[in-house]
């Protein structure tokens, strides 16, 4: 009696797992094709330079002596009217030379107003809460300290705010250290698909273009209206996206506003980053899904997309459950004779094919970006898939254990970076193994602020 029950249970689990994953596969196919074929993506670049409100740029920093000067110089070099620009480097209890670097810039440029935190709760969300109280800008733009903003990026990021319904805006994050390690190369593919395909498609289709907390901005009045940053959240950006959405604000995506970042090059760093994202996202899911379902601002499709976005990390345990059920069927000889076996195999096969959907997005982005670099790494994403699945399951296990038993849980963790500077003459971009040619450096000058000392 127990064996037939086990077999039946395994089939139910496989069917449920496949059905759940199929929804995500269809979603990826829709996004991939939508981005690939829409001739004129939703774009607000015509407004660039015509809408120039007062802007405050916030740069959270914690022990950023290697990169602080570079990002501040890059922001100073941005082609935004200095009379309408305020830069607040948020020095969050740094113990290195960050403070003196920031103060040096503040003495030189009157529109740089440093905020030095010496006490209070740690982490970016807590620092942002306090820094935003000091911001005078109508629009708040955020950059992580190790990012490399180009000269026109501020104009591009504020352009969508010409629409009074726009509460937040997000730019495209582009990894620059694709050649650092296999993981960096794989993450670069993932990031490209996430921005060029998924975010742009969601924006085109009228869904929520998620605000990512850096290379993005938020309208100060909208932030205030939704109660500000959530200092308890591990993903304050996702939390803000949904708080805005529930209050009728839209989040815009500006694909043209590209900014370079460094993706984790080692798995230990990536694992902790992923763990924080999983915890923050899942917390948001539990906090917001009932309100999302009831929202009068959202259509049925928007609600579905929002919930799927927040529940995306559940796909990992679903995959594992499917595997366990399949293994059980494999080891039970009676199951081999069950007429349902072909059906189970078909489900399993289709589940594997459904996984191609994410690769369609990656391929679509490679076609659009016109880059051949890294595309041949696609099959190696299998390694990343297994690594991610394990890390996500572990993070969810910790999250739910903490949620139900009230112990443990992850704290805020700053992603470790390895770059020596943001692109100065001794930095990663122009030095060492990645040294660019004189022509590239010259060309870079058209696009990026002149590197200090150049």
């Amino acid at each position, binding site marked *: 009696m127990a064996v037939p029950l086990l077999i039946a249970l395994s089939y139910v689990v496989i069917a449920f797992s496949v059905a759940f994953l199929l929804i995500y596969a269809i979603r990826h196919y829709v996004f991939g094709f939508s981005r690939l*074929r829409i001739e004129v993506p939703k*774009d607000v670049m015509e407004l660039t330079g015509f809408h120039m409100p007062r802007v405050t740029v916030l740069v959270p920093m914690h022990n950023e002596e290697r990169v602080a000067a570079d990002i501040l110089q890059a922001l100073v070099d941005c082609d935004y009217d200095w009379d309408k620009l305020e830069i607040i480097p948020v020095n969050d209890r740094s113990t290195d030379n960050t403070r003196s670097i920031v103060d040096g810039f503040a003495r030189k440029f009157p529109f740089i107003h440093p905020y030095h935190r010496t006490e209070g709760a740690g982490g970016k969300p807590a620092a942002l809460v306090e820094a935003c109280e000091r911001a005078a800008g109508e629009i708040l733009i955020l950059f992580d300290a190790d990012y490399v903003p180009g000269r026109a990026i501020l104009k591009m990021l504020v352009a969508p705010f010409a629409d009074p319904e726009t509460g937040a805006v997000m730019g495209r994050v582009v990894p620059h250290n694709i050649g650092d390690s296999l993981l960096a190369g794989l993450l670069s593919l993932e990031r490209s698909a996430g921005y060029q395909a998924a975010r742009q498609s969601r924006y085109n289709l009228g869904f929520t273009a998620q605000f990512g907390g850096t290379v993005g901005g938020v309208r100060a009045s909208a932030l205030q209206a939704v109660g500000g940053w959530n200092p308890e959240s591990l993903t304050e950006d996702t939390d803000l996206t949904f708080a805005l959405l529930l209050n009728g604000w839209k989040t815009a995506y500006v694909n043209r506003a590209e900014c370079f970042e460094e993706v984790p090059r080692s798995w230990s760093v990536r694992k902790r980053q992923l763990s924080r994202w999983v915890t923050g996202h899942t917390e948001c899911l539990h906090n917001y899904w009932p309100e999302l379902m009831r929202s009068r601002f959202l259509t049925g499709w928007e609600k579905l997309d929002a919930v799927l976005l927040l529940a995306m990390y559940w796909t990992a345990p679903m995959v594992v459950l499917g595997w366990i059920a399949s293994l059980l069927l494999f080891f039970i000889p009676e199951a081999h004779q069950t007429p349902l076996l072909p059906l189970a195999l078909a489900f399993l096969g289709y589940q594997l*094919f459904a996984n191609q959907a994410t*690769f*369609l997005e990656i391929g679509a982005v490679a076609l659009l970006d016109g880059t051949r670099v890294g595309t041949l790494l696609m099959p190696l994403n299998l390694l990343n898939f297994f690594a991610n699945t394990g890390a996500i399951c572990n993070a969810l296990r910790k999250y739910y254990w903490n949620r139900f038993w009230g112990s443990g849980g992850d704290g805020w963790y700053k992603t470790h970076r390895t770059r020596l500077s943001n692109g100065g003459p001794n930095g990663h971009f122009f030095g060492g193994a990645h040294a660019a040619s004189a022509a590239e450096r010259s060309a870079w000058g058209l696009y990026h602020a002149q590197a200090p000392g150049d």
Partner: protein
Amino acid sequence: MLKAPKEQTLEEMLMSVQVEGIRPPAATGRSSPRNRIYPHRSVRSVPLTAARVIAGVVLALLLSSLNAYYAVPIMELHSIVAAKLVDLAGLPVTAWPPVDVFPGLQPGSAPMIEIPAFSQVSTGARIALIASIVMLLIAAARFSLFRNLAYFLIVLLALSAGRNLVFETFRLQSTMFGQVWLRQEMLVWLVMPWVLLLLFVLPHPRVAGGLGWVIFLYAYGFFYSAVRMVFILGVMHYTGLLFMPVLWFAFGTLSDLLYVLFFYSIAVNRVSGELWGTRSAWQSHF
């Protein structure tokens, strides 16, 4: 007299602008002038024409229908290819008896070869199992990205060893393996054309290129299936069922996923480099 509208070239469909008159040298310093200026990648698209959709759907429909209609000859051909490979490998297959693959369908044939029980498995096979686990542990310790996959494979090996050790009666006939294999692959071949349509035909900027990939991959998938089946048979003949779960995992449907992905990455790599012309430094960070 009415004039037929001029057909758009691919370059025109990609919204590029023809450069006329003075052509500045490319920013890379290379001597070849740029003939076209392409739109920034943030606003690019690859047009999806009706001709491409229709051609792709027709081909997928045709392949799936042929697979369903000629299921028996296809299975026979698969067995013939597998039999040749078995001969080449020198495996002692004694017969190819008929096996029922799907109800209502004429039977296919599956190889009959001895698969030893755990007690009959050679010492070498047992050492190979232990060595595999040790090697996976070493790899997991050295390559963090590989760790979870290695642990998964170790779990499969350990479960397999435990199952064989505890339940001596756990056996799998080679004919049953062949039966399950054919069931799985027949289903894969039914679904495959539609997956290939999505991955190769619709995103591919040239219709003929996309259709060519589909036909090539369909043929490749068929022959590769026979190769994998014979390889698993060979391993099972010498090591019993010790490696069966790992083999099933690595050479089953995952393998179908991987070869499609491998060729997809090549197809994308080839097309993406030519679609938007040779890029200069200012056009991309890569």
